[in-house]
């Protein structure tokens, strides 16, 4: 993707982010995007879980980002509520995403093929 000098440590990442933030421009476009992210069009049953996740995301942000985005830290324990929601969803739907599941099946298939090749070739 042509990304130049990606950071190789958390410290490097923090330094790069601080440099970028010097150019931050919290204008009406940002406000419009934040309004959208706060209340995207979702099926009704997903709206309250999303509100929890959005509040968790906002609460997890360092204060300087929240200030630039015009977001307030929620006055309720959003990080804990998010943790509970994540645990609930994990319990209901299983701990692995479909993409990871398919990737692991691919690795098993490749390993089986390798093992068969090893057997076919005499030691």
């Amino acid at each position: 993707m042509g990304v130049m000098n990606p950071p190789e440590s958390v410290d490097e990442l923090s330094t790069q982010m601080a440099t970028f933030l010097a150019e931050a421009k919290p204008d009406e476009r940002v406000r419009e995007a934040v309004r959208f992210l706060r209340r995207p069009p979702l099926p009704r049953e997903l709206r309250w879980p999303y509100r929890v996740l959005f509040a968790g995301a906002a609460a997890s942000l360092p204060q300087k980002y929240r200030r630039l985005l015009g977001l307030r830290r929620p006055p309720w324990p959003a990080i804990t509520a998010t943790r509970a929601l994540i645990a609930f969803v994990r319990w209901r739907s299983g701990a692995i995403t479909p993409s990871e599941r398919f990737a692991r099946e691919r690795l098993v298939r490749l390993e089986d093929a390798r093992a068969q090749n090893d057997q076919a070739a005499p030691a």
Partner: protein
Amino acid sequence: MSRRARPDPPAWTVAIGDGEDEGFFGPGSAVWAVNGGLPAMVAGIRALLIQTLHPGAMAGVHDHSRYREDPMGRLDGTVRWVMTTTFGDRAAATAASRFVSRVHVHITGEYIDAEGARRPYEANDPVLLAWVHDAFTEAFLGAHLLWGGVIPGGADATCASGPAPAASWGS
């Protein structure tokens, strides 16, 4: 307790099961641990919030993105890229990044920077790509540290996995 029938996964997800190698990261990697977890949902929201702050990146979204008209479609595009580059084999991950680079070619225009100066932007600008990459990494790391489990190799490993695939994505 009954389970609601789950919709079949999309074709691009099933295609992750095809392929000839373990991809750029593999099981046990920091990137698999961070992107495969449910905290990725929250991390995605956090990443998007941060990314709006750079006026060059925001201009590309404002001028060209269909996020207002088709938010779910736009979201699916990003989810697909994240999952394919993380879990797909090397060929699939490289193809996914090339696809995004081709889409980015058309995302150009002008914006006013924080100093009030008019500047051109293009989505494939290495500086803007670095911003998006860094915001994404920062968000996913932060979310995983709060809500996810232990990261194999520690937090630095999530960053350190970046250079090899990031360099190979350069095109």
